[in-house]
């Protein structure tokens, strides 16, 4: 399993009701239903991913998350997960609010735009960063709302969101001790566990 998903699954209690926003091919939900008797649903927009979920026996619901989650009742999930999708949302702040409305707890992961390589690219080349990990150019990127760990944590303070846990990893989702020395400079992906 993808390393970030492995970190996330460890945070989810057996028997929970889980909603995965942008569930991809359903890897996390499939694991959780097999190993933790989780009742899970994934929202997904990509047609190939939806077919893959159906084949894998994962409950997948075709939906553009940007259209909102209004049809889902307050507190109807134990955990709402969104991996590597915050930066493609039109309004990440509203999505985070919505996630916290429908779930008791939320797990969010996103790439850190404050990572030294991104800073260096912009600082020295004077151009928007392009890397193997984030291969798009500024005009065709789906990633329209990049932020740094610091930016996200500021949003949490403004919105009274409690950060229960944070793990910072490199682009291979490895948790390295030295990343903790200066996470906003060295970490590439953060995994946050948040509640109201």
């Amino acid at each position: 399993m993808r390393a970030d998903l492995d970190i996330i699954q460890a945070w989810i209690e057996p028997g929970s009701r889980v909603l995965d926003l942008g569930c991809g091919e359903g890897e996390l939900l499939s694991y959780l239903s097999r190993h933790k008797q989780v009742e899970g649903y994934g929202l997904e927009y990509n047609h190939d991913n939806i077919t893959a979920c159906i084949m894998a026996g994962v409950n997948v619901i075709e939906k553009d998350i940007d259209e909102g989650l209004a049809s889902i009742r307050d507190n109807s999930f134990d955990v709402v997960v969104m991996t590597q999708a915050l930066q493609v949302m039109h309004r990440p702040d509203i999505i985070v609010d919505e996630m916290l409305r429908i779930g008791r707890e939320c797990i969010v992961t996103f790439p850190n735009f404050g990572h030294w390589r991104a800073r260096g690219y912009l600082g020295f080349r004077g151009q928007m960063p392009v890397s193997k990990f984030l291969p798009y150019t500024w005009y065709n990127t789906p990633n329209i709302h990049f932020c740094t760990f610091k930016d996200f944590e500021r949003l949490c303070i403004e919105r009274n969101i409690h950060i229960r846990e944070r793990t910072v990893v490199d682009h291979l989702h490895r948790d390295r001790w030295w990343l903790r020395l200066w996470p906003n400079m060295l970490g590439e992906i953060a995994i946050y566990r948040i509640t109201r």
Partner: protein
Amino acid sequence: MPTPFPDDSVGLVEPSLVRFDQPLQLACGRTLDAFELAIETYGTLNADHSNAILICHALSGNHHVAGYHSTEDRKPGWWDSAVGPGKPIDTNRFFVVGLNNLGGCHGSTGPNSPNPETGKPYGPDFPIVTVPDWVESQARLADHLGIRQWAAVIGGSLGGMQALQWAIDHPERLRHCMVIAAAPKLTAQNIAFNEVARQAISRDPQFHAGHYYEQETIPKTGLMLARMVGHITYLSDGGMHEKFGREMRSDALNFDYSPQFEVESYLQYQGERFSTAFDANTYLLMTRALDYFDPAAAFGHSLADALAGTRCGFMVISFTTDWRFSPARSREIVDALVDAGKPVSYAEIDSQQGHDAFLIPSPRYMEVLHAYMRRVAADIPPESPDAR
């Protein structure tokens, strides 16, 4: 015999009649002492009787789901695109059952069948049957075929409503439920269109209050108008534009009211063809069954509560340009299932074909059907040794 049919066709098929002699209590309060259902089956029932799929038909459908009745047939059954060897509903794997619903006009007991009390056709005296009544009659059919549990019950439009009702009424008798281009109940607009259709039929002078059989006539004009209105609601604005635009049959304007636009003659042709192939009383009955469908009503109008007792997996499919039963209506079903904590997947297929899209084998639609049917196949329990 060398077959003239494609390899992925079930080929020549033959309908059969099944007679039921146990009285059937109907929602309207009346009872049918005996009735017959016309059915067709494709594929082979396995030793455990665990690979059976029920296909429920929509308003004008019937038991002839796939294959051909003769080598002369121009067209195969109404869902031949999805049912056959190697097709999404794979007859190499599944035993597929299609039937003509009670009240139908293609062989099952209905308004054009003789009323045993009078010897004459029932006509308007045939009781109005509802979706739950159909499900009950289909459960009798399952008993007759020795099927305790369907691998899946599948239907589009009004057929999808029957599939949903199956999941509610007989939770232990199906493992999967596929609801395509359906709705949890009709809107005022839906009912309004049905009423226009019914008025067109019942105001036709040839209708004779439903007793037209004795007059040896049919309310052809009324049925034709009903179908024309219906047909418009099955297509999308964009789809009609693509197909007909403002194409004319002649170059100059005629300055009269005869059909000049291609869309006019198309609708007349469709109406005409339908009016000789379908029974007017059955049309009234089917539209009423649609109007009355509202499974949530018995559960304090909570669809989630209505679905709380279901035990099967659900696949819900809608089509973007369907305005008869729009994607929003399918999402109501999906939301209620999520609310009730039931397994459900949902796909919204891009299509230009409106409501009719559920009958058209567009690539992504077939891909989704294929994917879910693989899951249905995987859930067939391994055959028990004593069943062999």
